[in-house]
């Protein structure tokens, strides 16, 4: 079995269709990010930590299961709540961390949930001193400083990637490879803005993974273009570009599929915790693969057409290194 053995799709000829699709997606994403904003999770914003004791007064009541408490708190709308036993589990003391700024409101909400959903554990006890032991505002685990630092680090790494591709290939290739990366990242962040899904530290990791994946994918095609430019010296540049994309199509789709298979398995079977991460990854692989096939090398070609730097670039590209 061979996928795309003699593929010959007109990727280059039809490039304007994909440019338009991408432009629409990017504009929509940027609008989404501006208008709806990003729903930063407690990883970045901080929240409230509440320590509660759930030792029932009535000795007949069985000890509260942590899973049950998780369910109750999650159902009350605190989706990203982090719940741990603190100290020995037999003391039935729990630490609940939830997002939000209004300490008093959250305290009231949690109190309300506990009294209505788990009355047997709080009956006959003083709510404000005995059940709720401590309430604190907690800072972000990562913080905006770290977020800005991450963005900075990614930008610097992009500069270095351009330089490497410039040296090994040619400047236009490097620049457009990074433009394609921006394209991928903006669209993925746009999806998170539109759906208002929480943007956690893990989602940031997914985006970083996407950056690595997408540039990898793009360079494989660049590499084929470089090779073919040396072999088919008589063919025109668009034909060489199109052939290179088609020849690597099998590999691009297979690698995309194996990675996508693992991501989608995590999405469907991985449980709620890695659900959003798996979603980001699955989407990221689709976007990254799409941009490598349809956008990155087509942008290089388009630049050549407009700037007439083609001859120079090809000379640089095919000289022996």
């Amino acid at each position, binding site marked *: 079995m061979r996928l795309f053995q003699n593929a010959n799709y007109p990727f280059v000829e039809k490039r304007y269709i994909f440019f338009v699709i991408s432009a629409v997606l990017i504009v929509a994403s940027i609008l989404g990010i501006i208008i709806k904003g990003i729903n930063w999770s407690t990883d970045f914003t901080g929240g409230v930590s509440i320590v509660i004791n759930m030792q029932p007064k009535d000795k007949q009541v069985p000890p509260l299961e942590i*899973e049950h408490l998780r369910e109750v708190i999650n159902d009350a709308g605190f989706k990203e709540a982090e719940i741990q036993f603190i100290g*020995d589990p037999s003391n039935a003391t729990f630490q609940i961390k939830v997002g939000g700024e209004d300490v008093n409101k959250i305290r009231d909400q949690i109190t309300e949930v506990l009294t209505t959903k788990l009355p047997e554990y709080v009956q006959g006890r003083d709510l404000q001193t005995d059940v709720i032991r401590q309430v604190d505002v907690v800072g972000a685990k990562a913080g905006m400083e770290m977020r800005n630092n*991450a963005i900075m680090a990614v930008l610097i790494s992009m500069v270095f990637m351009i330089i490497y591709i410039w040296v090994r290939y040619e400047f236009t290739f490097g620049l457009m490879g990074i433009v394609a990366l921006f394209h991928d990242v903006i669209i993925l962040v746009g999806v998170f803005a539109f759906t208002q899904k929480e943007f956690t530290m893990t989602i*940031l*990791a997914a985006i970083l993974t996407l950056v*690595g994946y997408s540039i*990898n994918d793009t360079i494989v095609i660049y590499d084929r273009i470089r090779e073919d430019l040396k072999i088919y010296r008589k063919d025109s540049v668009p034909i060489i570009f199109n052939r290179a994309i088609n020849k690597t199509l099998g590999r691009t789709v297979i690698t995309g599929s194996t990675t996508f298979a693992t991501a989608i398995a995590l999405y469907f079977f991985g449980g709620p915790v890695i659900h959003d991460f798996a979603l980001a990854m699955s989407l990221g692989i689709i976007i990254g693969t799409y941009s490598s096939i349809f956008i990155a090398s087509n942008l290089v070609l388009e630049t050549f057409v407009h700037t007439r730097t083609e001859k120079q670039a090809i000379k640089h590209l095919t000289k022996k290194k």
Partner: protein
Amino acid sequence: MRKYSWLTPVSILIFVLGTLIFLSPLFVPEDVNWPIKQKLKLGLDLRGGTQIVLTVVTKDLPEADKAAAVENNIRIIRNRIDQFGIAEPTIQKMGESDILVQLPGVKDPIAAENLIMKSAVLEFKLVAEPEIAEKFINQIDAIIQENLYKFPVLAKLAEEDKALAKAGADTVKAGEGIFKSLITTTERDFAVRYEDLDIVRSLLQDSTFVNLKPKGYDLVLESVDEKKKASREPVVLYVLESTPQLKGTDVDRASMEIGPSDSPNPQIANKPYISLTFTRTGARKFANCTGDNIGRRLAIVLDNTVYSAPVIQDRIPDGKAMITGQFTEQEAKSLAILLNNESLSAPIEPKYSTQVSATLGEDSIKSGFRAGLIGILAVIIFMALYYKGAGLIADFVLIFNVGFILAAMTIFGGTLTMPGIAGIILTIGMSVDANVLIFERIREELDAGRTPSAALNAGFKRATVTIMDSNLTTLIAAIVLYQFGTGPVKGFAVTLSIGIVGSMFCAIVFARYIMEKTMIKPGKTTMSI
């Protein structure tokens, strides 16, 4: 067929053995004495750990600096406990000035506390001139005598002394208080008898004492090393000017060094010491300080302990200094690390530490593992079906690649969290890429009519260029992320680099070796690919 040097099989052997050795602790029961101790930890989300709450003491700071000091301490603590960004601690500000730290799987909260609390506050302070020092000691003696009721331990001691005096022993000289009775002298300094060390040390830390003590000068003990412990010699008690001449922030770089055995300085001959290079302003300050105070002694104070107090012989213009003392190599090394990282902006005190359980339920953990297994199996089955024999070889090295990632994370002190596991599973999906590139190339070469052996060689040769270029670009990005990122971003870069290196080695060296050994036979014209 390509001739192999001994290098290939040896590197494969090292790769496999190294992986097995560093993963071995996972399979050896706890009670067996196994030489390799470091083990891949499970994260807070999977296993829980220890929670330590610390208070930043900000009362001595101006109001405006308090918040910044807490934030700064959080950052420094993070650097200390998470050097490579993959230890996965939780560090958060809590309330106004508390810091909540959760460490995965820590069994010894005291040791963890110590690591966090180590402040490594370095100061250079002038030793007071003898007559001033004497006056200062007398002042303190008088003050303590006046306020003896505030110091129950000393009061009790005084009672005992009085009783002894009545019985005829003449330990308390006229006009001298209890404090002076604790002090002896060495050739040029005051000192504390070894048996009184604990009493004096707790007195110096007592906040009542600190508040009563006249301002301008401080009492600081010298460091007590093993030799001193053995000989029980008196420990020098220095009287130092309170205002430091230089601080840790003036140090640009600190490193552990071992003096040459023929060094004329007996303090460093064959001994580990810390060499310091000052910053530009630090160097200027140091030159001025040494120039203005020739003949006086400059104490090098680390964490409120005097390590040495050499006499200033001459102005030192080159901005270099060293801390000598009876360090072990390990001590000198960890001190240098602490000095290179900033010291804490304000002291911290532990409030309490306690065990915490996992943040994820059993269910989530189980489903995470199940999903990972399904994903990996899908990849393995696909590779075997699509690339047949070659696919099986790719599957075989894939298992070692996963092992390598886990082993390398162990070496870097990594912690496995749920998102981390998801990341590794994704890496597996991606790492077959190198194999796919090679196999596709070999197929193309076979299509072009080459023999299996020639196709294999040509395929590997061409694909290696592609793999190098694409992976090196990503690796460069990872190195930059490591260099400029903090915390989890750094950790991501480490895991990414490990994954890239592992998959490149597995595809280009390991898989190729097996393919050439098993798939290429003289006279064979087909290839299972």
